[in-house]
């Protein structure tokens, strides 16, 4: 590890995870869980959240065994050089693709709700340029940016969510506990994918200055994300009922569009919320983009990741414009999650952890 690299605190890592995870996934989450489990979706979110905590802790303990190394380096010790290059490449491609498709979703949503006449290409390219402006910097600067942006993101979000609560129909939430274990097992992985973004832990743990706090921070942070997901999907479900929620493409946006604040100066919240939502997506894609370029620079052993971030722009742009329409986009994203996502989020950490235990490699820490 480069000792000159600037360090971040565990708190900053936690905030980074929050702003990274919450992004595009939250738009479709109410629909996804309702499709799988109907009114019992909330249960699925809680189980999914618990599972994510376990997975995050596995990645964390891997990081603690090799305190100075990212996955690129420690996988080399565990599975050998060729396989570690494979893992690295899979991660880079995965991050790049997720980032690119997220940019596309962002562009589609923005075009639909805020800028109907602007070509999507303009929206995407301006967004990517702004992202590059952030990811050209080092991790420390990015972490500071997230610290400041998180203050601006969540206050308006919750204000907007609560603005519509007075006209909810809570009977829509019933019935509960109709779920069979089979449905849970079948659907929980899809909920886990809506938490995707936490796997950037593979890279950032070596740069945390107070490693003993990571475990606690991760548990708290993922619980917070779970609660935010829970509140959001419950409110949306209560607002529309399960049948309508299933039919909506982006139920959260539809909910926000439906809010009318009586007596307030602002008539439609949708414009404001879209503006705030840009921040959510910005942080998500920035982290993925940064991870991608950062890993690439480590894989090729070039310390400067700035060059990669510029080279990646046309690539991400082209990939983002590949899908023909929104269903195609989501189909590709689903394929990516189910096949690559499972490998990245579930299989790789578990296998690496088992290997590390069996081969007795890495430093034993009491953290």
């Amino acid at each position, binding site marked *: 590890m480069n000792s000159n690299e600037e360090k971040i*605190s565990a708190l*900053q890592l936690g905030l980074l995870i929050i702003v990274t995870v919450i992004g595009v996934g939250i738009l479709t989450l109410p629909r996804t869980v309702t499709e799988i489990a109907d009114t019992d979706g909330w249960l699925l979110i809680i189980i999914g959240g618990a599972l994510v905590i376990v997975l995050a802790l596995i990645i964390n303990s891997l990081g603690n065994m090799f305190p100075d190394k990212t996955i690129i380096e420690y996988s080399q010790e565990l599975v050998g050089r060729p396989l570690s290059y494979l893992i690295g490449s899979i991660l880079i491609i995965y991050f790049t693709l997720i980032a690119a498709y997220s940019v596309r979703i962002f562009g589609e949503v*923005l075009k639909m709700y*805020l*800028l109907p006449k*602007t070509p999507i290409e*303009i*929206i995407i390219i*301006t*967004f990517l340029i*702004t992202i590059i*402006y*952030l990811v050209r*910097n080092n991790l*420390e*600067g*990015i*972490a*500071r*940016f997230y*610290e*400041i*942006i998180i*203050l601006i993101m969540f206050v308006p979000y919750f204000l907007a969510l609560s603005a519509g609560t007075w006209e909810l129909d809570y009977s829509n939430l019933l019935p509960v506990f109709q779920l069979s274990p089979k449905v849970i097992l079948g659907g929980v992985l899809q909920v886990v994918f809506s938490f995707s973004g936490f796997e950037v832990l593979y890279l950032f743990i070596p740069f945390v200055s107070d490693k003993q706090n990571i475990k606690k921070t991760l548990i708290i942070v993922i619980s917070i994300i779970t609660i935010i997901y829970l509140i959001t999907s419950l409110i949306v479900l209560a607002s529309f009922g399960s049948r309508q929620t299933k039919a909506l493409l982006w139920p959260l946006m539809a909910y926000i569009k439906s809010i009318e604040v009586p007596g307030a*100066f*602002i*008539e*439609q919240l*949708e*414009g*404001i919320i*879209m*503006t705030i939502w*840009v*921040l959510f997506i*910005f942080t998500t894609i920035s982290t993925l983009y940064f991870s991608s370029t950062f890993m690439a620079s480590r894989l090729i052993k070039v310390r400067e990741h700035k060059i990669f971030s510029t080279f990646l722009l046309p690539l991400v742009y082209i990939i983002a414009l590949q899908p023909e329409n929104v269903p195609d986009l989501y189909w590709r994203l689903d394929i990516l999650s189910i096949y690559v996502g499972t490998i990245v989020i579930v299989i790789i950490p578990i296998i690496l952890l088992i290997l590390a235990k069996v081969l007795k490699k890495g430093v034993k820490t009491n953290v």
Partner: protein
Amino acid sequence: MRVIKKNKDSKDKNFVPVLRELDKNIEFLEDIFQDCDDIVSREFTVGVNQNHRMYISYVDVMTNEDMIQQHVLRPLLLEARLISPDPGDIKKKLFELVLKGTLSASDIEVKDNLDEAVLAILSGDTILLIDGVTEFIVISTKGWPTRGLSEPPGESVIRGPRVGFVETFRYNTVLLRRSIKDPRLKIKNTQLGERTKTNMGIAYIDDIVNYKVLEELENRLETIHIDGIFESGQVEQLIEDDWLSLFPQIQNTERPDIVSAALLQGKVALIIDNTPTALIVPTTFNDFMQFPEDYYERWWIANLIRWIRLSALIISFTLPSIYIAVASYHPGIIPSNLAIFIAGTRETVPFPVFIEALIMEITFELLREAGVRLPNQLGSTIGIVGSLIIGQAAVEAGLVSPIMVIIVALTAIASFSIPSYNFTISFRILRFIAMVATGFLGLYGLILVVIATLVHLSVLKSFGVPYLAPIVSGRMTDWKDSIIKAPLPSIKERNSYTAWGDRKKLRDLRVDIRARTVDIEPKEDGTIDKGKNQPSHTQNLKKPRKIGNKDNDRGEKDE
């Protein structure tokens, strides 16, 4: 022949020895000061027998001539003649006699490098050369016409000291020393400017300062090789972290109380001769949003003012852009009545909203720029021209909508309510960038500019301190004095991002001031408890309100 070893690389090696022959020394100096008619020099003889030749030289009016008369010439010319010391001593010890016995000036210095004499003369000191001695005396006689202390016009306060720095370096250090009477307040002198040789003082408090910052500052100052420094702004531009940034990374002020408070926070101040503006490093975003009154007034007031300032900042940055976005891209956001009203007022306006806003903002900037340079009498003319011609006539002619005028006025007022002038300018520039972005992409363009601004601010550092400290990567205790202002008694520590070493700011002496009620009623038997050391005219005050007085606490238990 005089051998002058000159080495242009370093000042120290530029050594010119003082020779025994006075004439040769005089020749050297007069050669250097040829055609410098403001330099006065005089050769005279001293002693009972008028047999010791001496030579003084100084810059006319830059020195305190009274002092030269009273404490240099008079003792040498008159008193030295009255008391004739042992003749044997004179030859050997003339120099020491003059130095220790005759000169009555207090601040004198002995030097042997004639090259330094040149600088001493040019700095307002007087030099005294004695025949046959290979050293010379520098007498500090600095004294030139100065401006009196007055309140800095750009930083006036309602409550607070009404004194500002002046152009004289020493006065400024005096102002600091007067407010911090602590030997740990260090003021290190250096010089800057190859030709101007501007004096500079690096002020810091020894056991609080962050040594890394101090070291970094000294290193950066050493790298400066410029011909002249006339204002601290030049130094600022040469030592700031990121010269491409829109934002000032070094605070400047004319107020000694701001500098003193900054020193107590562990910052380093740079006081520069010939300018009343001092620099303070490291500087954060927070510093530009604060003003001494925040600390002098009670905390509720300070909080209110700080929030108003923050809103003013946001307004001056985004308001025209928001108007452009709402009026031309997203009229659905505001109530339909208002949207229709705005559209109605814009009926006759021939430009798109974006162009209209741009024209009005530029017009206002023109007005402001014109007003700054004009003398006060003409300033009102600008006001009339601005309000009548641009405001009223343009609206009546239908060229500009009245709402646009309101928006521009609001933006202007907001940008004036931020205490720091150079900081406001950053946001003035950003405002135009935001307007252009909004003109193309609506609210989305605005948020992209806001994001880019925040990214830049997050990455920016001033002497190693994050620009957005303490909001980012600081400790929560530092938040007590940021966007919010906690009550003064609760701020017990200095800011962790600036202060090292001694962190204690306020010692906890007034913990239970509220718990201790002051009973002013007389006792039941009519006697009045006088308490300790109580003057007779406050008899009905039962307990003296002495804060943290242990004697008083004991007195309470006795009751």
